């Protein structure tokens, strides 16, 4: 899950970034509106956490320009302005949710999950694909009710494919979602992750290669029908 965090207060931005990364998100940081808008226009994020008062370009302007450019990325507006008018203004400018400072980090996480979920048309954190069940909230995977041990990155790849079940995702697209701007990116690494995932799935009795299908020359696709899930 890749998230853009636009916040000008360095201390807040850093600790938020750290917290999100530790939760398995890959996080890009921008300290002003212009940089934020640039990143948001270039990269297809799963969600954007946007502060309202920013240098150069304020949060609302960034939001309006994004929406005007046709970007539908879910945006969580973060601000010290908590009055009703302010919240209404923020939501009307195209925000999907609004969080008033100071907030609990756990609430920010919950709202982010909800945003991503809604963006993928999911009503709950539980993603059921036949014998495989993913819990986006608890960030865990289960097979036949038994927990499946995965690293944060492996889980991210699996979640991404599961949320887009039936669609073929290119290696670049997957890498984009898994790594932030600062990381060394190599789309071959994705093959390694897929390989490990397949092995772990097969170890608990799932047909790894059929579930995570290789589309030659294109990328990977998750097909839930092979494990008793609905065909998307």
């Amino acid at each position: 899950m890749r998230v853009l965090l636009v916040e000008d207060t360095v201390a807040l931005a850093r600790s938020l970034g750290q917290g999100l990364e530790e939760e398995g998100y890959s996080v890009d940081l921008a300290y002003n509106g212009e940089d934020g808008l640039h990143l948001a226009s270039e990269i297809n994020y799963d969600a954007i956490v946007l502060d309202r008062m920013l240098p150069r370009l304020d949060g609302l302007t960034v939001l309006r320009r994004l929406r005007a450019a046709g970007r539908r990325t879910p945006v969580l507006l973060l601000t010290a302005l908590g009055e009703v008018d302010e919240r209404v203004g923020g939501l009307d400018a195209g925000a999907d949710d609004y969080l008033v400072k100071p907030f609990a980090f756990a609430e920010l996480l919950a709202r982010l999950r909800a945003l991503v979920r809604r963006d993928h048309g999911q009503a709950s954190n539980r993603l059921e694909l036949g014998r495989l069940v993913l819990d986006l909230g608890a960030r865990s995977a289960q097979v036949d009710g038994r927990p499946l041990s995965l690293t944060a990155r492996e889980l991210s790849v699996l979640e991404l494919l599961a949320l887009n079940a039936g669609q073929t995702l290119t290696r670049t697209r997957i890498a984009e979602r898994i790594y932030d701007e600062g990381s060394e990116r190599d789309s071959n690494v994705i093959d390694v992750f897929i390989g490990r995932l397949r092995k772990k799935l097969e170890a608990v009795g799932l047909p790894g290669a059929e579930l995570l299908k290789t589309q030659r020359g294109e990328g990977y696709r998750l097909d839930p029908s092979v494990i008793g899930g609905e065909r998307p």
Partner: protein
Amino acid sequence: MSLRLRLVVLVGTLVLLLLGGLGFYLMSSLEPWAREALDHELDLQAEAIEDHLEVKRSGQLEQEDDDHFDHVGFVILDARGEVAMGRGLDRVWPLFTEWGRPQTLEGTDGRSWRVYGRLIHPEHEERLDPSRRPLRLIVGTPARPFDQVSSRFQLGLAVSLMLGLFLGGAGAAVIAQVSSAPIRRLSVEVGGIEVTSIERRIHTSGLDPELAQLAGSVNGLLERLDGAFQQQRALISHASHALRTPVASLLTISEVNLRRERSTDEYRRALVEIGQVAKDANQMVEQILALGRIDRLQAGLQKSAVPLAELGEEMGRLFGPRALEAGLELQVDLPRTLALAADPTRLRELLEVLLDNALRYTPRGGQLGLDASSEGRQVVLRVWDTGPGIAAEERERVFERFYRGAVGKESGQPGSGLGLSIARAIALAHGAELLIQDRPGGGTQVILKFPPPSL
């Protein structure tokens, strides 16, 4: 005392003084006047009696038209002191003493009489026995008619006094009622203005000029209070907003770090970070409080002669280590010969704000400084740096409360946006001018022009 009571008492006193004074004057002038009239009447009567008096051939005295003189009594004495003729004055005349002048006598009948006596010469006086000549006439009339007039007058006066007092009092009460009605309306209107509705004003239309003036004064007061209130409210609202970000930072840092077990180093880093944020938040609180003090600044200035060299040394001690840490060179150059008439605490506060700004926003390797010069009798302080400068269009706005310039915001440095508001307020309280300029050679310089010390 209520307005109504005061008015009633005032009118009552006026009526009392006026009617009483008039009555007293009339009384005191009526008595001699009435007496004079009476005396004149007595004289006339005496004349008439004399005119109608005749001496018969027998030597008897006779009065023609006797009934003519009913309302006066008289007695005619001959030279031997015997009564030759008389009527109605028996119980009075023996007490008579002074001839030729009217006098008031208490008769043996217990009544008061006005009596007048003189020599007379009746017609055919020669027929009278010479030993009986000359004849003397005493006329008298009861003084009662005058007393009656006087007491009737007194009664009238008393009645009119009472009536005057009553009517005057009632009139005054009505006038007070009528004239205080707009005051009461005004009072109700003023009373209806609460802390929550301080933006309301009193309607001055239809008010008497005096009351309109009062209402105008009250409105002026409300205007000033409202302004101060709004300023205070804006300060509180801004302050709470400004403090939300550091609080959010603190919460996030602690929550994120508590979500899992960490190494001692990681915890230490988190604590250092929390300490830094708290320190910045504290500075913000200090500045908000300082801003709250600013409105009372002018009155509270405790001016004394501040030797600039000493001030410079103090600033050097305060900012030298910070400059070193930030990789900056601090140059303080305040001549020993200069001194300023200023409040030393406030002046220090002002320089701290300016130096703090210079230090925060000047990139590593740069310089900042504090120097002073005299221009004529003016002392000019200068705080300068080699930082990014302040854009011309921002030079006025940076003095607004909570406004942070682009450089400040982008630096990621926490800041309240209050420092320069405080600096300017302190400068203004000292009558000094505060200007932001480009420094020749790059950077910013803040010029503080202090007026010549007033004697």
